[in-house]
């Protein structure tokens, strides 16, 4: 359900509550029945797609890529030069297709990704997009009020930071390489991956500091 759809005067759609849910459930079930009966889709294939989306893809993939870039300068160079090639070379993630682009956050420049026209998102490395990414507030404001959006995510950058918004208007997809947090010298890739949040790879967040890290990772 989209966060942008709720107001006291909106009681159609936009909601997973009560009777609305039932209506959508019924309509979706009916369409699946029709498509199946007509031989266009195979329910087992649909099951498999859902399973893949729920269990295989997710920001853990991007987090491993980022952690590798933090510890391996040669990999980082490859990633920034051709992210598709670099990620596919890792072997341990699904092939990401040929249009992945990585952009690096630095103390001087902060990158943030949006799709104003729909909700394009690098799901191969981040999983399905969260509702906020697909919502009207984010899509409308990221390009005209990025600092306001960042503030709502709790991100305040030094005033002299250049902010760059990437509007995903084609099939190219963008992965933000967040800055490696201070105090992580000597951490291994797995430990570092625990600091890499989904939002830090979209540009609406920063990587966690060691103090914020999951207990099993922090020392």
């Amino acid at each position: 359900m989209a966060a942008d759809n709720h107001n006291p005067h909106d009681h159609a759609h936009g909601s997973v509550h009560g009777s609305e849910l039932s209506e959508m459930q019924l309509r979706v079930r009916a369409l699946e029945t029709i498509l199946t009966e007509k031989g266009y889709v195979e329910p087992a294939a649909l099951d498999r797609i859902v399973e893949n989306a729920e269990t295989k893809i997710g920001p853990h993939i991007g987090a491993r890529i980022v952690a590798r870039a933090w510890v391996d300068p040669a990999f980082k160079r490859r990633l920034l030069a051709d992210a598709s090639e670099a990620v596919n070379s890792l072997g341990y993630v699904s092939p990401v297709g040929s249009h992945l682009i990585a952009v690096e956050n630095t103390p001087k420049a902060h990158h943030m990704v949006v799709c104003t026209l729909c909700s394009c998102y690098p799901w191969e490395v981040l999983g399905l997009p969260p509702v906020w990414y697909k919502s009207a507030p984010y899509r409308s404001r990221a390009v005209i009020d990025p600092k306001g959006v960042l503030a709502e995510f709790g991100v305040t950058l030094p005033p002299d930071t250049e902010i760059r918004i990437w509007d995903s208007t084609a099939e190219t997809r963008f992965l933000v390489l967040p800055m490696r947090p201070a105090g992580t010298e000597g951490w291994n890739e797995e430990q570092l991956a625990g600091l890499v949040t989904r939002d830090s790879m979209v540009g609406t967040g920063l990587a966690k500091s060691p103090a914020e890290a999951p207990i099993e990772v922090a020392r």
Partner: protein
Amino acid sequence: MTNSIHDMGGMHGFGPVEVEPNEPAFHAPWEGRVFAMQRAMGFTRLWTIDGDRASIETLPPVAYLAASYYERWFLGLEKQVVAHGLVGEDEIAAGRSLRPGRRLNRKLTAADVPGTMTRGNFARPAPGPARFKAGDQVRTANINPVTHTRLPRYARGKTGTVEAVRGCHVFPDSAAIGAGDNPQFLYTVVFSARELWGEAADPSVSVSIEAFEPYLAPA
């Protein structure tokens, strides 16, 4: 359609970005089924990803805004299967198939699913040399077609700088209307926020779009 409500970059009034902690991939099982059906029907290649986008963009604006993301996908998919003659309006109304389906050249099976986890390749052989190179100043066209385009309203008639040439890609404006791939060079074009939003805009902000060559002229 080009200037419909989906083109919301720079709009005001949608309120704050609301983030849901620990968000699941799907908020209800029907969302997963919609996602899966959409991908399974995309596999048939009866239409393109831009055809899907156009189907959603041409929803009535109030329906578009009131619907959640997967409700939109559902409404768009329902339109597509009817528009392409795969399902009859009467079958949608009945909630079941009333006659046998058309024969499809491609049908997704469970075994195919892992292969669909790689993003499709939209690169195409270049019909000629690229018109622009990194560093070129360009001016975006002022176009307002009634059919699908990926040049957002906020970035029309604006002057920016080519930052990168992304190769030659399927041209969405053609693909969406069944006019073939019509491959065009794709560029990352960067604009200052002041160019896009006026002198009151933050000078530290810039915004890029992925712009197809027909959208651009030398500045």
